[in-house]
């Protein structure tokens, strides 16, 4: 344990993929708009007389991250005092020793996004252009407590949050496109006493990082900032409260504008929007509509299908993958009822399906789950039939089917298919078709054409 401890908190913005914007009926599609300023109206343009009318969908599609709901009333956030569990992997220890770590979420609220400024040079003149397509797009802001101590924890939290958001289909949560944006705050706490001392007081400053467009940048920027502040403390200097931007070119953070004082922001309840009131029944109805989230799914897969922790983790990576897996399991189960003794003997277990999916990484967009089960079955049968059995069957067919043999020798391609069919019949449907074909061809080659 070093003599400093990084204190990291996150502020994450996620653009919601609602059909319309937060306070008007304009289309919410800033990334695919063909032209600037096409999805605008008096409300999101801030014309005189335009009044915001909340889009309830933006609230209803709200993720159930935190436990304690406090329903929005004017300046009250939608939810407070939530948490998200991540696993903390102690350095140099196996994953078996992972410790569940609770990252506290201070608040989650919805706000509206701003327009986008584009600085350009037109006819030799430097101009600033504004695109309002993004103006008024609903934005969920998640603010954590400063509970992170390592970059790994931040990385894990972000990936997990992104996974949940994608599970809920409320946003693409794409850092590169800007539909998920991250502002970490970092400060360094000198450890004075024993290592296990609980933190009594957080540092009096914090450095907010901007310009972070990917998980990779986040990692690099936070690591850089920890190093920079630690070096300052080592030199006996005190880091100051400021906003810094990550420069990917230079690999450093650089100071941006001085942080505004709080009095520069002026808050008061929006009189145009009446308080939202929710019945308990409405909330429980919304809760029931929330799909199974990654952690629950992972646990259920382990319990129901007997998957290992590792396999279940991979299979539940996306909702699509998990759904595909379950569909395949269903197909495998249902074929059990066909009465076919052979299939019953060679049951494709969920574990087998999971293994196949993890090892072979089939293209789940191209292969139907039923096809996948067939493939697995075909492959698994190979081991059931020895090469000797195959060659035995081939010998027998070659002996018995003299007419087909002579046809083949005369150059009739169909004869090969007939012979193959006969061998498969002999093997009672067992064995890998590819291997049988290979062996049959080998045998036929001996006879010549």
């Amino acid at each position, binding site marked *: 344990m070093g003599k400093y401890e990084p204190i990291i908190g996150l502020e994450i913005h996620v653009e919601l993929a609602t059909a319309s914007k937060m306070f008007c009926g304009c289309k919410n599609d800033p990334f695919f708009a063909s032209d600037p300023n096409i999805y605008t109206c*008096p*409300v999101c*343009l*801030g*014309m*005189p*007389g*335009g*009044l*915001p*009318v*909340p889009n309830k969908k933006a609230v209803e599609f709200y993720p159930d991250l935190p436990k304690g709901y406090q329903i929005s009333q004017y300046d009250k956030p939608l939810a407070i005092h939530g948490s998200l569990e991540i696993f903390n992997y102690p350095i140099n220890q196996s994953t078996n020793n992972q410790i569940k770590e609770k990252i506290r979420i201070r608040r989650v609220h919805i706000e509206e996004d701003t327009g986008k400024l584009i600085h350009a040079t037109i006819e030799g003149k430097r101009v600033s252009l504004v695109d309002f397509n993004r103006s008024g797009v609903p934005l969920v802001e998640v603010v954590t407590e400063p509970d992170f101590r390592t970059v790994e924890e931040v990385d894990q939290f972000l990936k997990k949050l992104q996974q949940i958001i994608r599970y809920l289909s409320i946003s693409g949560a794409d850092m590169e496109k800007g539909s998920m944006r991250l502002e970490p705050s970092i400060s360094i706490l000198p450890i004075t006493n024993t290592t296990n001392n609980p933190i009594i007081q957080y540092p009096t400053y914090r450095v907010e990082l901007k310009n972070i467009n990917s998980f990779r940048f986040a990692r690099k920027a936070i690591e850089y900032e920890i190093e920079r502040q630690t070096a300052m403390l080592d030199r006996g200097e005190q880091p100051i409260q400021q906003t810094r931007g990550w420069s990917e070119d230079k690999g450093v953070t650089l100071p941006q504008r001085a942080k505004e*004082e*709080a*009095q520069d*922001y*002026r*808050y*008061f309840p*929006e*009189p*145009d*929007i*009446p308080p939202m009131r929710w019945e308990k029944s409405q909330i429980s109805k919304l809760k029931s509509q929330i799909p199974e989230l990654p952690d629950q799914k992972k646990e259920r897969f382990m319990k129901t299908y007997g998957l290992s922790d590792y396999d279940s983790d991979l299979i539940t990576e996306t909702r699509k993958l998990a759904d595909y897996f379950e569909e395949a399991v269903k197909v495998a189960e249902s074929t059990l009822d066909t009465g076919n003794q052979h299939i019953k003997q060679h049951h494709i277990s969920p574990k087998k399906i999971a293994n196949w999916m993890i090892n072979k990484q089939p293209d789940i967009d191209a292969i139907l789950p039923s096809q996948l089960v067939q493939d697995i079955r075909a492959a698994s049968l190979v081991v059931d039939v020895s090469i000797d059995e195959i060659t035995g069957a081939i010998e027998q067919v070659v002996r018995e089917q003299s007419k087909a043999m002579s046809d083949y020798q005369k150059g009739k391609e169909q004869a090969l298919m007939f012979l193959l069919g006969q061998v498969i019949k002999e093997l009672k449907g067992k064995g890998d078709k590819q291997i049988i074909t290979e062996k049959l061809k080998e045998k036929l080659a001996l006879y010549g054409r």
Partner: protein
Amino acid sequence: MKLNTLTLTNALALLKKKEISLEELYRDIEKAIEEKNNELNIYLTVDKEAMKKARQAQELPLGGLPIAVKDNFLTIGLPTTASSNVLDGFMPPYESTVTKRLKESGGVVIGKTNMDAWAHGSSTETSDFGPTKNPRNLKHLPGGSSGGSAAAVAADMCIAAIGSETAGSIRQPAAWCGVVGLKPTYGRVSRAGVVAMGSSLDCPGPIGKTVEDCAVLLHVIAGKDEYDGTTSSQTAPRYQKNLKDGVKGMRIGLCYTDHPKLVGTPVDVAMREAGKVFERLGAKVELVKLSKSVKPNTILTPDYAIGLYTIVQRGEVSSNLARYDGIRYGEDRSHFGEEAKRRIALGTFILSKGYADKYYVHAQKVRSLYIQNFKELFETYDVLVSSPSPGFALPIGASAGDPMFGELQDMLVEPSSLAGLPGISIPCFRDPETNLYLGLNIMANHWQEEKMFAVAYTFEQNIRWDP
């Protein structure tokens, strides 16, 4: 007879019977505008195409009648300035809900009327385009901020008008100009497309020559609007239906006549006379005593409302005027007048960190005291009556150099406006020497405009005007 002097209801009846024609009516209206507008400075814009539009609207309920509209309602085709240089020449790209409904019902916007710039005032003297004069007495102010609309009705330069009020901006000019002005329940009429001032207080409403005219117009403009989340989903009743319900058996509370500023004034006398009229008509009239705290069957002094209203409204103003950056339309912020700058500065200060709790949050607590007080009073009384203003129209120049002019003029309606209550001001006294009027403000509980109309109509039909 000059057809421009007709009430809306009479004009409609005569048009229907074909005793008059729209052409004759418009000729008289346009003549009145031509003769008087230079002197009175009522219209900032007059629609030259109005007659043409009227002909197309003949078959609709409002029959193409010319309606004057305050210049803070966005109207396609007519500039909308809110009487501020910042919006000079601004051509709205969309229509306010109120004017849209007016047009759909066959009303024609004859012109846009002068007002206090951004509706910041109670005199129409703070307009960046010069003051409007009171048609009843040219040396006097019309009141405000809907001074242009009230004056247009009084001067017969329209058949009826639309104004807007946060606290007093319809009723006070209606009283000073001797016409009828109505502020509906907050949320009864959509604010969409109205240049916002105090968003938690703004209410569009009609100004007319009679109570019935206001009832007809309110029905046209009221109701749920998807573009204003604060509008009520209750359907707007046919307000004309219950006009003749009378006041028999009603309990009427007379308010504020014992306020130190009013005792012994003409307002005090006029209110007591009005009370006698109601008693004669079978109502039970009681003086509701003024009190310094919320106590049963007393009315909380309006004195606290002055500061409270100022805080709430300035805070909202500073936020609502933030959008006028002069980049996409209009002029830049250097074109704001003195009063707007003063309000922005005060509102900004009020909402600053450390002060918001002290002022804004505290003000909201006082606001809920007023709401509580009225709620209890309406358990006892059917309506409350008071004066909309402490006195007659003041002389031109009276508001100059007094940043609190409006707040003091409107102190008697501020408490009920902060509570979101409706009120209608009708003429109740005329000084024969000056030709100036006093109004009677009738207030009802939320959504009880019908009761208010019945009381107002009964009074209007029974008051005897001096010979």
